[in-house]
C-alpha cells in the first residue's frame, strides 16, 4: 500500500522547504459553482480521503444537487444549515498542496447578505478566483466581489468562467464575458488578471487541459495558481514590530514580543519606541528557543533592548531612522458588518495591530455603490455598505496607510456594549499629523517645550503706578531677550483691554476679573514655554497674590516699578493724571484709588535712582542666571 518509502522522506522533506503557501479566495454570485470548483480542486489534488469520499456519497444521496453524481460542493459546505439549503453561509478554509505550493483556500459565500464573510476571507488572501456562470455573464455580485477584493488589497485575480459545459464550450461567449469583465475591472488596479474557461463539474481546465476547449491555449486553473507570482514586497520596507506582549519573568529579563509586520531587524540596530519616541538599540533577538542575529517580516520574535525603556502592549518598535506616522484623525474606508446602522458620533472600540482605543466616525464623506463605484451621500451606514469616512481616536495611533502595510493600516471596530465586531476599516491617510511631536522622547509638557526653547519659562509681573515705566521696561527687556534668541511675549494692560477684556469696565468686580484673565493667559504662555512680561498697574496685594498662586514656585517674578507719583504725574504720557485731577476719570490709582505697594517683590526697581539700562541689566541677570541653573 505504501508507495513512498521512509527512506525517500528526507528527500521529500527537503522538497517541502522551497514550497510557499498561497492563500486565495473563491468568490462570485450564488450558484456560480464555487464550492463545486473547490471540491474539484480538492478531489483532483488527491486531498480527499476514502472515508470522506464515502460519507460524501452518503451525503450526496441525502443533500446532493447533482442527481446520481456525487456533489463535490458537499465537501466544502460543512454546516448542516448550508447542506440543507445547498448554499454557502460562512467562510470555509480548506487546505491542499501540489508539488509546487501549499494552498489555503477560503470559500466565501455568494449571497449578498454574507458579503462581510466574503471580506473576511479576502482580508488574508493573496489572490481571488472570481467565478462567473458562463450562462449568466458578469452579474452585480461579480462586480461587488471584485470591488471588495480590490478594496481589501488583493492584487491578483483569476476570472474563472465556469459551467462552460453548459454553453457547449463556446469560445465567442467566453471572450465576450472576458471583455465585459475587463471593461469594468481594468480600472481597479489589479496587478494581474488571468481568464480561464472551466467546468468545475467535469473538471475541464481545472487540473487538466480541456479536450473540448482546444481553442484555449492558456494555463489550467491549477497550473496558473502553481506559477502565479504574487510577490510580496515587505522585505524592502523599514522595520515595524507592534508590541504584543511584554515578557518579564523576572527583574533581569524584559522581552518585547510580537510579529514583525515589515522589514528586518538585527542585533545592535537602533529602534524607536512609538508613540513615545525613545531611541535605543536591540540587545538580543529570540526566535523561539534560539537567540539569533537577525529576523525578518512575519517572524514571531522576542526582542530585548539595551536601555530600560518604557514600552508596553500596543506600542510599536520601528527603525529609528524611519519611524512610522502617529496620528489621531484619519481618512479610512469602512465596511459596515452589523445589522444596526452606523451613525457618526457614536463611540466604538477600535483595534489596530495590538492597540485598542476608542474611536468615533466624525463624518461619512461618501458611501460607495459597490456595484457601480459611484459616490453617494450618506448619513448612516447599513450592513455590508462601504464608505469613506473621517475617523477620530481617543489616543494617537502608530499607523501606516493600508496600501503600504496591511498590519498597521487595518482595523476593526467593536461595539462597546455587545462586543460584536461591527466594522472593518483600512486607513488611507492621516488628516492631522502628530508625528513630529511624538518623535520626542519626552512627554510633551511644560518642561519639554521649555527645553526645546533653551529657556526657563517665567512670568515677570510688572506692577506700579500709571506712568511708572512698566511698559517701557517690559518692551526694552523683550528686545534684549529677543536679540538673545529667547521666546517672549508682553501682555500690556491697554492691549488686553482692547481685545480679550474689552467687555470689562473699571468697577471693582471688573478689575479683579481683568487681572484674573490676564494671569490665566500668562499661565498658559508660561506653560507653552515662553517668558511672559505682564505690564499691569495691579494696585492690590490680593490680586497679585491671586496671580502668583497660579504659577509654580519660582515662576512668578514680581517686579515693583517704584516711581514716585510726582514723577509719574510729571511724565503723564497719556494725559490721564490731568483727566483724573480734573475729575473726568474716576477710580484712578494714586489719585482717588489706593495703590498697595508690594511688601517683598522679587525685584524692586527704583527708576528715579537707577538708569533704565541698569534696570534692564538687573532683569537680564536674573533671567540669565535662572536659565543656566537648569
Amino acid at each position, binding site marked *: 500500500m505504501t508507495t513512498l518509502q521512509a527512506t525517500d522522506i528526507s528527500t521529500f*522533506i527537503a522538497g*517541502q522547504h522551497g514550497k510557499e503557501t498561497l492563500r486565495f479566495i473563491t468568490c462570485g454570485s450564488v450558484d456560480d459553482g464555487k464550492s463545486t470548483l473547490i471540491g474539484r480542486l480538492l478531489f483532483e489534488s488527491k486531498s480527499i*480521503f*476514502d472515508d470522506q469520499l464515502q460519507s460524501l456519497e452518503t451525503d450526496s444521496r441525502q443533500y446532493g444537487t447533482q442527481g446520481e453524481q456525487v456533489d463535490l460542493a458537499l465537501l466544502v459546505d460543512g*454546516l448542516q444549515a448550508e447542506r440543507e439549503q445547498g448554499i454557502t453561509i460562512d467562510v470555509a478554509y480548506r487546505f491542499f498542496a501540489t508539488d509546487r505550493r501549499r494552498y489555503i483556500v477560503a470559500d466565501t459565500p455568494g449571497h449578498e447578505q454574507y458579503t462581510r464573510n466574503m*471580506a473576511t476571507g479576502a482580508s488574508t488572501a493573496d489572490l481571488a478566483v472570481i467565478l462567473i456562470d458562463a450562462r449568466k455573464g458578469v452579474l452585480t455580485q461579480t462586480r461587488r466581489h471584485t470591488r471588495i477584493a480590490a478594496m481589501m488589497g488583493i492584487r491578483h485575480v483569476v476570472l474563472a468562467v465556469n459551467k462552460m459545459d453548459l454553453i457547449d464550450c463556446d469560445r465567442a461567449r467566453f471572450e465576450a464575458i472576458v471583455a465585459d469583465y475587463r471593461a469594468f475591472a481594468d480600472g481597479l488596479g489589479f496587478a494581474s488578471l488571468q481568464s480561464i474557461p472551466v467546468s468545475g463539474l467535469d473538471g475541464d481546465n481545472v487540473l487538466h487541459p480541456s479536450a473540448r476547449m482546444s481553442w484555449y491555449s492558456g494555463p489550467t486553473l491549477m497550473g496558473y495558481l502553481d506559477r502565479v507570482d504574487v510577490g510580496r514586497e515587505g522585505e524592502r520596507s523599514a522595520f515595524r514590530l507592534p508590541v504584543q*506582549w511584554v*515578557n518579564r519573568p523576572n527583574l533581569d529579563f524584559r522581552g518585547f514580543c*510580537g510579529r514583525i509586520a515589515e522589514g528586518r531587524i538585527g542585533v545592535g540596530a537602533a529602534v524607536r519606541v512609538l508613540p513615545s519616541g525613545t531611541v535605543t538599540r536591540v540587545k538580543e533577538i529570540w526566535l523561539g528557543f534560539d537567540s539569533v542575529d537577525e529576523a525578518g517580516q512575519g517572524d514571531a520574535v522576542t526582542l530585548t533592548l539595551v536601555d530600560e525603556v518604557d514600552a508596553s502592549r500596543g506600542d510599536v518598535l520601528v527603525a529609528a531612522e524611519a519611524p512610522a506616522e502617529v496620528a489621531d484623525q484619519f481618512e479610512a474606508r469602512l465596511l459596515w458588518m452589523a445589522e444596526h446602522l452606523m451613525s457618526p458620533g457614536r463611540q466604538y472600540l477600535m483595534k489596530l495591530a495590538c492597540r485598542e482605543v476608542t474611536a468615533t466616525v466624525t463624518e461619512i464623506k461618501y458611501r460607495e455603490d459597490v456595484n457601480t463605484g459611484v459616490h453617494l451621500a450618506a448619513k448612516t451606514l447599513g450592513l455590508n455598505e462601504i464608505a469613506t469616512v473621517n475617523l477620530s481616536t481617543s489616543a494617537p495611533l502608530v499607523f501606516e496607510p493600508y496600501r503600504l502595510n496591511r498590519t498597521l493600516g487595518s482595523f476593526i471596530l467593536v461595539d462597546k456594549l455587545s462586543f460584536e465586531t461591527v466594522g472593518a476599516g483600512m486607513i488611507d491617510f492621516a488628516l492631522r499629523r502628530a508625528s513630529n511631536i511624538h518623535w520626542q522622547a519626552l512627554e510633551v509638557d511644560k518642561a519639554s517645550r521649555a527645553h526645546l526653547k533653551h529657556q526657563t519659562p517665567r512670568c515677570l509681573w510688572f506692577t506700579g503706578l500709571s506712568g511708572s515705566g512698566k511698559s517701557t521696561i517690559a518692551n526694552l527687556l523683550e528686545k534684549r531677550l529677543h536679540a538673545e534668541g529667547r521666546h517672549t511675549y508682553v501682555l500690556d494692560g491697554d492691549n488686553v483691554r482692547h481685545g480679550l477684556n474689552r467687555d470689562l469696565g473699571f468697577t471693582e468686580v471688573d478689575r479683579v476679573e481683568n487681572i484674573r484673565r490676564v494671569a490665566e493667559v500668562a499661565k498658559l504662555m508660561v506653560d507653552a514655554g515662553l517668558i511672559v512680561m505682564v505690564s499691569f498697574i495691579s494696585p492690590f496685594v490680593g490680586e497679585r497674590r491671586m496671580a502668583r498662586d497660579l504659577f509654580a514656585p519660582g515662576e512668578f517674578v514680581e517686579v515693583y516699578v517704584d516711581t514716585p507719583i510726582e514723577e509719574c504725574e510729571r511724565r503723564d504720557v497719556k494725559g490721564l493724571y490731568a483727566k483724573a485731577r480734573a475729575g473726568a476719570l474716576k477710580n484712578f490709582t494714586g489719585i482717588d484709588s489706593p495703590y498697595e505697594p508690594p511688601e517683598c517683590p522679587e525685584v524692586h526697581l527704583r527708576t528715579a535712582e537707577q538708569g533704565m539700562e541698569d534696570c534692564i541689566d538687573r532683569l537680564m541677570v536674573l533671567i540669565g542666571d535662572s536659565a543656566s541653573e537648569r
Partner: protein
Amino acid sequence: MDHLRIKVSPMLALEAESIEIIREAVATARNPVMLYSIGKDSSVMLHLTRKAFHPAPPPFPLMHVDTGWKFRAMYSHRERMVAESGMKLISYTNPQGVAEGVGPFTHGSNYHTDLMKTQALKQALDTHGFDLVFGGARRDEEKSRAKERIFSFRAPGHRWDPKAQRPELWNLYNTRIREGETIRVFPLSNWTELDIWHYIHAENIPIVPLYLAAERPVVRRGGQWIMVDDDRFPFAEGERAEMRRVRFRTLGCWPLTAAIESDADTLEAVIAETLNARDSERQGRLIDSDEPGSMEKKKQEGYF
C-alpha cells in the same frame, strides 16, 4: 538566523502565526488555560506555547479532561511533559461519571463522550472560571471545524452558534467578551495533519510512542482494531487479543480509538504513510461517524 529559516522554512509562517495567536490570547485574557489532550496536536501546541514565552515558562496552566479511559502510555507522557514545561497541570474528571462508573463499554460511546468529555469540560471550565481556553483543533480535521474561527466565541453555557460567528479579518482578533461568555482559541487552525508530523520531525518534539508501530494486543471489533490497554476490556465469548503490528493516527479513550496495521516505527515512516494515506485520521475515531453533522452538534453543545 538563516540557518533556522532554511531548516523549517515551510513551517516558519505557520509557527509564527500560531505563536502570534497564543500571545494575543494570553495578552487579552483574564484567566486562560490550555486544554492538553496529550495527542500529537497538543504536543505541537505545547511546543509552540513554550517557544512563544521562552525564556519564561508559559504563564498559564494546562488542563487535562481525564475520562479515566486514556491509554496508559498517555498518562506517563503527560507527567513527563508537565515536568519538562514547568507548567501547572489541572486534571479533571467528572465526579458524576466516576460515581456512576461510566465507561464506553458499559454505557456506550455517546453517553460516555458526552458525560466524561463534553460535560466534564464545561464543569472544569466553570469550576475554575477560565475565560479563554486553547484547543489543538485544526480546520482540516472535519467539515464543521473548517468553518470555525480561530478565536471562537462561546455563549454562556459554552454553546457555539455557527451562524453567529464574529467576522475575523486579517490577524485582528476580537477578544472582548461579556460576563459568562468564553472564547476557545485554536492556534493550529491552519495546520494540516502533514504539517503536524512535519513539525514534530523538524523540531524533534516528544510524542506518545503509540503513534509509532509496535506489536500490541488488539481485538477486531466492527471492522476495526481495538487495543487491549488494561484489564477492563470485556472480552466477548470466544474473543481474544492477538498481537499485531499497529499504530494510532489519533489518540483518545482507548476503547474508542482504533489502531491501524502499520510497519511505520519511525517518524519518517509515519510521514511517508500519512502522505500515502487513503483514509482521514478521524476515521479511527468512533464518535465522529455516529450521524451526519455529529461533530457540529457536539461542538454546539460545548465539545471542542
